[in-house]
């Protein structure tokens, strides 16, 4: 009898159910979409932040001081010590290897450049441009394409990047203007002919330098395999109180947590572990700035998600009240026919539960699809379905629906059947 009552109610009162179902559907859709966006916005913005370039730098521990003014290193090229190029793949072995998006070694040198009759001394830097880095574990067969252009998205290139192992170079735009160099020209660098493959404009000191393949710079200074410093672009988590702690002074449990969080500090620490005799430091200007922006935007989106939650709760609650108010007469009739209050309340609660679960599931699917679409539109990469949101959404839709309808049901069952039946038509 009870189940038939519910079935009939759904079959015969489709219009009345529609509004309630619509409210639950829309409310859960909004909440799911907003929660999906709010929880993944940090990840998306982190990827956008890659445009700021490297956030970790690695240099030899025993290195002499940098003598750098205005982005130009005036230290004699022979001073100091080097990292070894063939060890860099080890950076891809650390715990957070998948967060290491880019590795870019640099070797600053000074080159004598002869163009036409003029010979000038110019700063030059050896880079990887499109280097294929193979995993240190040959059985995995993994390899990555890495280099300076990916870590310097603000470099504007005309022409092409020099090919690895070739005698090609790229020239900073300012230097190219001064020396009247053009793409395709051949000049003498350190006495050897090199071809200008591209011209780079960066808006900083790089505009006045040569950009050459790392191997070429190493040959010029006679140090095969030498690298002065390595820039690493890593996806990191904003720094919190734990991140600033010295890991060697933490309790083993806290240290594990520190080690297993993708802080810039812990990634730097792990790089130092795999590359002995090096110093890895977070580039605080970039890392700290990214952290600030990231926490502000995530915070904002979570607050907006909270607003969506309140709005959805209100919508569902209001529509539930409406649904009950419309059916007061029906309640009166059932009471007159001898149904107890408990049975009536039970009937309504079961109905609402069915609606809330169906609406919640549909809303979850719709909201996830919406978040997917918004992520695609805004960030160019979709926001993945998050199954953890389903129970949360369902619970929410149930609690809000039941809480929203309880007062009206209570009110309706308290009324004298005779009054209700006479009063309304």
């Amino acid at each position, binding site marked *: 009898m009870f189940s038939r009552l519910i079935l009939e109610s759904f079959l015969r009162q489709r219009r009345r159910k529609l509004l309630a179902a619509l409210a639950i559907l829309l409310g859960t859709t909004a909440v799911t979409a907003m929660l999906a966006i709010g929880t993944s916005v940090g990840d998306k913005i982190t990827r956008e932040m890659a445009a700021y370039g490297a956030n970790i730098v690695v240099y030899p521990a025993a290195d002499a001081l940098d003598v750098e003014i205005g982005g130009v290193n005036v230290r004699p090229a022979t001073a100091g010590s080097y990292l070894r190029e063939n060890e860099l793949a080890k950076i891809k072995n650390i715990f957070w290897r998948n967060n290491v998006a880019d590795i870019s070694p640099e070797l600053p040198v000074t080159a004598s450049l002869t163009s036409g009759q003029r010979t000038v001394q110019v700063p030059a830097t050896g880079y990887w441009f499109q280097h294929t880095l193979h995993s240190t574990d040959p059985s995995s067969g993994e390899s990555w394409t890495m280099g300076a252009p990916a870590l310097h998205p603000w470099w504007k290139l005309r022409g092409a990047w020099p090919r690895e192992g070739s005698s090609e170079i790229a020239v900073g735009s300012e230097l190219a203007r001064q020396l009247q160099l053009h793409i395709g020209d051949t000049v003498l660098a350190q006495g050897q002919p090199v071809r200008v493959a591209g011209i780079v404009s960066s808006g900083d000191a790089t505009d006045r330098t040569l950009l050459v393949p790392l191997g070429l710079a190493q040959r010029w200074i006679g140090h095969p395999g030498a690298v002065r410093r390595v820039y690493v672009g890593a996806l990191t988590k904003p720094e919190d109180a734990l991140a600033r702690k010295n890991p060697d002074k933490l309790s083993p449990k806290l240290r594990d947590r520190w080690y297993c969080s993708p802080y810039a500090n812990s990634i730097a620490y792990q790089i130092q572990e795999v590359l002995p005799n090096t110093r890895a430091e977070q580039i605080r200007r970039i890392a700290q700035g990214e952290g600030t922006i990231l926490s502000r935007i995530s915070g904002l989106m979570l607050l907006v998600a909270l607003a969506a939650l309140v709005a959805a709760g209100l919508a569902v609650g209001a529509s539930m009240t409406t649904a009950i108010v419309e059916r007061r007469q029906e309640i009166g009739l059932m009471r007159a026919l001898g149904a107890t209050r408990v049975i009536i309340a039970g009937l309504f609660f079961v109905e609402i539960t069915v609606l809330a679960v169906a609406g919640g599931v549909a809303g979850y699917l719709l909201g996830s699809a919406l978040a997917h679409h918004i992520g695609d539109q805004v960030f160019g990469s979709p926001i993945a379905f998050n199954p953890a949101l389903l129970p949360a959404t369902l619970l929410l839709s149930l609690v809000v629906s039941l809480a929203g309808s309880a007062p009206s049901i209570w009110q309706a069952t308290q009324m004298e059947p005779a009054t209700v039946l006479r*009063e309304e038509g």
Partner: protein
Amino acid sequence: MSQKGLSLPLLLRRSLLHRRGRTAAEMIALTVSAAVATALLTLYASLDQKLHHQFRAFGANIVVTGQSSAGNAGLPANALEIARNTAGSDARVVPFVYAVAQTQSGAPIVVAGTDMAAVRQMNSWWQVSHWPETRNSAGTGGPVEVLTGVRAAQALGSDRFELVYNGKVLSAQTAGTLRSGDADDSRVYLPLDIFEKWTGLTPTTLEIQAAGSAQHVQTVLQRLRRALPGTEIHAVHQLVEAESNVVSRTRSLMLSSLVLIAMTVAVSVLATLTASVFERRRDFAVMKALGAAQHRVIVIFLAETVLLALLALVCGYVLGCGIADLIGEWNFHTSIAPVWRVLPQVALLNVVVALLAAAIPMRLLRRLDPATLLRGE
């Protein structure tokens, strides 16, 4: 029907006051809808400014240097003042001058002179163990308090050291160490006036932080170029480009959220108004039975709805401004002032949503048959 006692205002007043619970429910739904719309629109309107303000964390986005391919050319003596006046009141301008000095062991080291108080504000990412006193012992003849980069401190070995520039000796005392992860770690920073007295050099670089969109930075750049001829001025592309990217994406995200939430709120208003009509079918039936024309009943209902919507608009606007301000305090640590120009938008939204929500229950009203209803069937 033209009797005084049944004029529209009176009818409205009675109708609104008679069923207080119903009126309150409608008011709440409409107020919340106005408040949420106001809060989100206010946030959206001040989002750019607030976000750009946060991007100050990345430091200077414009660099002014003396024009010389050889490097250390000084800037005009009044460049700092001109730049401060040109860049605007909310911009930060910090002068720098660099020199390569020798340590006691003869190794080269970069020494920089700067305005300590200003750099502390601008380079918030500097991790400094202790800032030197702004007025330090320059006059007393004792060692000068300096800020030593962590790598420089390691190379120097001691907190008390001497630096030589052009044969002139400066005895320095490390007040605190500086960690930044870039070239600053290898430098020693001293107060500008002491640096100038020691080396005879004047500022060669101004780092300027103009908070705002890429367009604003470009405007400041143009103004500076006109005000400071003979200098080289460029924007830090690395920062400006990434910033506009992140801000515009956040804005689109905020806009989609706004639409989604506005829709949800509209449903709650719709549900509440439907319930309201339903509860009052009898009232309307009586009015019809007494000879009120169809349109008059509808006018009463609409007038009621619009009146409530406007009333809710005022409460909602005030509430929404408060919520926006609270979110600003929580998230951006600055208050968000009420934005007047969102008021018409909220008003339009609220009234449109209310009328739309009223349109559906109105169809119920039109189909009302007074006889059936009043007989109680």
